[in-house]
């Protein structure tokens, strides 16, 4: 695996961090603890073991190696494809918005370069016997950028705000996923937000009560929608509280300038509790709408991190081997089949869905089109999700010729062939990369006698079409909100986002069982097999983000499949 930035501190007993997925990371320990059996002693032991680990963890910050000399220039220019829509952690629903919010605010837990949990505002936590009450101890030295202390009350306010329908957050459902007590009722407007299962025991003790235990709750606290916001500021300025002149945050950086649509400037926050260990002085988030233009400007030295246009990775890797990396990213690219009432008749036939999925030559797509370290996907959950064993689906074992033969056969059984071709529309949101894949898919399907018309619309319109089941086959990608398989598999529950309208009682049952299972792996595997059997989607590839980063920038995450990064961990070295 490519890596950039030095491994900063190896505070778990893994000498080679490339292998740390197999080491007993604190995550794995936490997880074991939740799954362990009934012996209270064993539980206790594990609890203290993991707490000790968490407490012993040094504050995770920019931490240059002894042989590295810091550069005089500690500015970071980070590329954004588009201006971010909002800096409000509760309103944000975009990946790029999270990248900004993660610098301006800090939640209970952070992640390190490898995606492991490290303390943020919370120093440690305890959990009740029945695993429904979490008590977080907040660090007393945490301050807002205006100098006031960050208190448990701020978290209570933010968490209530996320669920409150009056906030109008499109990520309110995240709190439902977290299973916080009463979250669903509040989101539905049935219960007052003050009834949410969160409580400030004292200024530095934050207590969360869950409706029912979920094993991966702690992991979910790294998501930006759970970050605290300053009540006084939000209430005083309303929607305008995120403007540079008003904003107060608790992150390592504060907002100093917002030139809408071109440049967002962040500077070090002197009041941040770990400011002494922060190295980067200024971050510019620069919006450049064109990946090719961004690449040119990167090569001219104007940017410090870009994503590469599709297909350019191999060439640049050869030319700039120490700057070009393909970073795994927890997202899966797929074509959803509309199997709802409103979907086309043909797609209600599982044989047709299978034929369409089989006929897609994923190897060509990843090797010849995207060319940036993506992996062909024959299942839904991202392959490198923590504690997840990728399923072996039947068709992943066949050769493409076999798949194509099978596809033609299935189509014939379903009553379609070259003389009676199947006509469908493939929709995607406007983007060069999606267009290329769609054009290739069109060709693959043409080969088995399916005529597909392409239809592209802008993201917002596209999403409306998906939500209203107004499509035949739709491009979709899902990115993990947290590093656990359920973030993917929940999608196809009958109550999940599930834009294709997939409704399968067996699947729901398996997913329900997984919540309380000792070890959910078996259930997850079953769920994946159901997806392969019913084929409500054609998985295409697992993401990898081909990026370029100058060799002197250290500390951007490599192994963190969520690609969450914290500028406070980054530093530049002198040549």
């Amino acid at each position, binding site marked *: 695996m490519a890596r950039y930035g030095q491994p900063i501190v190896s505070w778990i007993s893994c000498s080679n961090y490339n292998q740390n997925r197999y080491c007993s990371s604190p995550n794995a320990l936490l997880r074991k603890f939740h799954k362990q059996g009934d012996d209270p002693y064993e539980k206790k032991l594990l609890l203290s073991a993991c707490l000790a680990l968490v407490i012993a963890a040094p504050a995770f910050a920019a931490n240059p190696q002894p042989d590295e000399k810091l550069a005089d220039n500690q500015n970071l220019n980070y590329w954004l494809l*588009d*201006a971010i*829509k*909002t*800096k*409000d952690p509760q*309103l944000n629903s975009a990946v790029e918005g999270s990248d900004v919010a993660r610098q301006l605010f800090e939640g209970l837990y952070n992640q390190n370069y490898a995606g492991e949990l490290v303390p943020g505002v919370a120093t440690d936590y305890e959990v009740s016997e029945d695993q429904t009450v979490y008590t977080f101890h907040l660090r007393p030295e945490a301050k807002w950028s205006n100098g006031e202390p960050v208190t448990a009350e701020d978290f209570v306010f933010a968490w209530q705000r996320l669920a409150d*329908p*009056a*906030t*109008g*957050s*499109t990520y*309110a*459902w995240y709190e439902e996923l977290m299973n916080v007590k009463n979250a669903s009722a509040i*989101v*539905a*407007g049935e219960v007052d937000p003050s009834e949410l299962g969160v409580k400030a025991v004292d200024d530095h003790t934050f207590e969360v009560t869950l409706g029912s235990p979920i094993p991966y709750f702690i992991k979910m606290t790294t998501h930006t929608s759970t970050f605290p916001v300053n009540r006084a500021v939000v209430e005083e300025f309303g*929607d*305008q*509280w*995120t*403007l540079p002149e008003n904003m107060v945050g608790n992150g390592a950086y504060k907002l100093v300038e917002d*030139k*809408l*649509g*071109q*440049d967002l400037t962040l500077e070090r926050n002197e009041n941040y509790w770990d400011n002494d260990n922060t190295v980067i002085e200024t971050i510019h988030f*620069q*919006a*450049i*709408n*064109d990946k*090719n*233009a961004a690449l*040119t*400007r990167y*090569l*001219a030295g*104007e940017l410090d991190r870009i994503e590469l246009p599709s297909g350019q990775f191999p060439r640049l890797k050869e030319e700039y081997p120490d700057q070009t990396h393909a970073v795994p990213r927890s997202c899966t690219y797929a074509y959803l089949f509309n199997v709802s009432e409103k979907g086309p008749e043909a797609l209600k036939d599982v044989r047709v869905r299978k034929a369409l999925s089989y006929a897609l030559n994923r190897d060509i797509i990843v090797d010849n089109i995207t060319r940036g370290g993506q992996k062909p996907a024959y299942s839904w959950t991202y392959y490198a999700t923590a504690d997840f064993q990728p399923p072996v689906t039947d068709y992943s074992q066949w050769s493409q010729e076999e798949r194509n033969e099978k596809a033609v056969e299935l189509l014939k059984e379903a009553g379609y062939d070259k003389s009676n071709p199947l006509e469908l529309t493939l929709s995607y949101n*406007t983007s060069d990369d999606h267009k290329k894949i769609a054009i290739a898919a069109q060709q693959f399907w043409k080969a088995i006698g399916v005529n597909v018309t392409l239809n592209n619309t*802008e*993201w*917002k*319109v596209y999403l409306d079409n998906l939500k209203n089941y107004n499509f035949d086959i739709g491009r979709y990608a899902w990115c993990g909100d947290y590093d656990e398989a359920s973030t993917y598999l929940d999608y196809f529950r009958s109550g999940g986002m599930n834009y294709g309208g997939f409704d399968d009682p067996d699947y729901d049952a398996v997913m329900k069982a997984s919540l309380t299972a000792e070890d959910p792996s078996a259930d997850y595997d079953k769920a994946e097999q159901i997806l392969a059997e019913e084929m409500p989607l054609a998985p295409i590839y697992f993401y990898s983000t081909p990026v370029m980063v100058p060799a002197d920038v250290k500390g951007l995450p490599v192994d963190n499949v969520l690609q969450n990064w914290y500028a406070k961990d980054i530093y530049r070295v002198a040549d």
Partner: protein
Amino acid sequence: MPPQVLANINAKYGLDQALWKQLLDYVWGIVSRFDFGPSFVYPDQTVNSIIAQGFPVTLTYGLLSAIVAVLIGVTLGVVAAVRHNSWIDSLAVGISVGAQVLPNFVMAPILVLVFTLWLRWLPGGGWEGLGHPAYMVMPVIALSTSYMASIARITRSSMLEVLNSNHIRTAKAKGLPMRRVVMRHALKPSLLPVISYLGPAFVGMITGSVVIDMYFSTGGIGKFFVESALNRDYAVMMGITILLGALTIAFNLFVDILYAWIDPKIRY
């Protein structure tokens, strides 16, 4: 999205009201407070604040481009006309036709490659305000070139016409030096068609600013327009359309006045 959340969002933007009420509120907001409403996409921005940020940028490089286009275009046209049928003339015609057919979305990346990547003379994008001319060079070149070409062609042909007219021939016959003839007598009348071209040209430049904003990250109004149209940010879309309409009218008026000033024969 949960229905309750959706309902609240709709209420916030007044979308739960009857259509006529929404329209009335919108118009009244503009008339009474000059308020075009909130942006649907950026929660902390209003249409007014978006325009206030983007419009000065567009106006700055738009006006600069107009000035550059007129200065160079007129010079090129005059030189070509005065040296009619010489190699200078052919060169000028060649340049102007060539410049006119090269779309600015081809020129912009070429400029960035040459000046930013290869020569490292200019920043590849961004906008730092009036004090930083380096950021303006490429936007102005990319935007003004095709208009410069048109202006050169118009100037050349109208100059040729004027130079063949009686009063110029008289002036020449009297032995006035060519330079003086052109500057004192021929230039003003031959600028008339250029001026009437300026109105639509300026509007065209604002349209072309979309490309500039996208390639050079200048943060101007053009990008916001396209973005708002694509994202269905109706309030911003309407606000910018109204602004541009008003601007068109204002500019046409300005051109008419200029016209009357140059050509006293014209009466309205």
